[in-house]
């Protein structure tokens, strides 16, 4: 299946469609994997067909990419480079039998910018992934004013 067909399946889900394009452009996954991850419900804690040697690494990487996508949307693509005045880290906390989380941290002001996921990844589906992405984007938007206050207070 080509990327075009995958994107057609996500035509009514603009955020997931954008995420799919972003994952492909960054070469994090190929078209088939993106289709299994974003277009249908997972058949376990992670799509069985995509499981590698370490399920936790698989889940953690996907959560990391969700947070990175949300970060890039809100803080721009230079968030990790020397051009950025911030010192941001993404820390995933994957689990296959319990809740999984992904945290976005700013280390200069010691601020938690976002806490993503917060549920089990069992039977993750397009709706849940969309909600999680929206939740992280919202938290990151809100974090801008909190960061501004803390940077001012610290200086």
């Amino acid at each position, binding site marked *: 299946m080509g990327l075009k067909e995958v994107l057609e399946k996500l035509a009514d889900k603009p955020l997931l469609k954008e995420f799919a394009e972003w994952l492909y452009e960054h070469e994090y996954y190929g078209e088939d994997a993106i289709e299994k991850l974003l277009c249908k419900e997972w058949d376990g804690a992670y799509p069985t067909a995509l499981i590698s040697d370490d399920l936790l*690494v698989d889940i953690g990487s996907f959560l990391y990419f969700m947070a990175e996508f949300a970060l890039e949307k809100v803080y721009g693509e230079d968030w990790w480079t020397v051009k950025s005045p911030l010192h941001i880290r993404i*820390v*995933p906390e994957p689990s296959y039998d319990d809740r999984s989380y992904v945290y976005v*941290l700013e280390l200069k002001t010691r601020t938690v910018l976002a806490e993503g996921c917060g549920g089990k990844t069992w039977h993750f589906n397009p709706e849940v992934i969309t909600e999680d992405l929206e939740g992280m984007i919202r938290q990151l938007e809100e974090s801008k004013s*909190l960061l501004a206050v803390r940077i001012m207070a610290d200086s």
Partner: protein
Amino acid sequence: MIIKFEDWLLENGYYDEETVRDDLYWRWYDNPPSPENLEGAADLERFLVYMARFAVEKVLGEAKSRMSIRIIPFVGFDAPSSITVVELTTKTVLGYVEVRSGRFEVFEMERVLKDLIGQLRESRKIVAIRVLVEG
């Protein structure tokens, strides 16, 4: 610091005496966690949690029960491993320490514990100010 940590590990029954005295310091040095050594990675992840719990108990004591604290261990293969301690009510990173897990031995453990404890001590003041100012 490492001696106190040893005693704490034994008191809590996380390892037996033989493991703590003979094996713990070289456990991951000769056999670093990697995609081929996932058991070692899980083992190290547990140990990072114990280090963080020890530091949190030592610095925050009873105060920790009034805070919404999360300990996040991370064992990286390409990226550095880390221990993160966050407080979610005030959205504060209480501690974040990167760990050289490829050559993880007693001097690195001591450095990580000291660094984490130092950051947790500083964070008490930061959290108090944030509660006061940000409500």
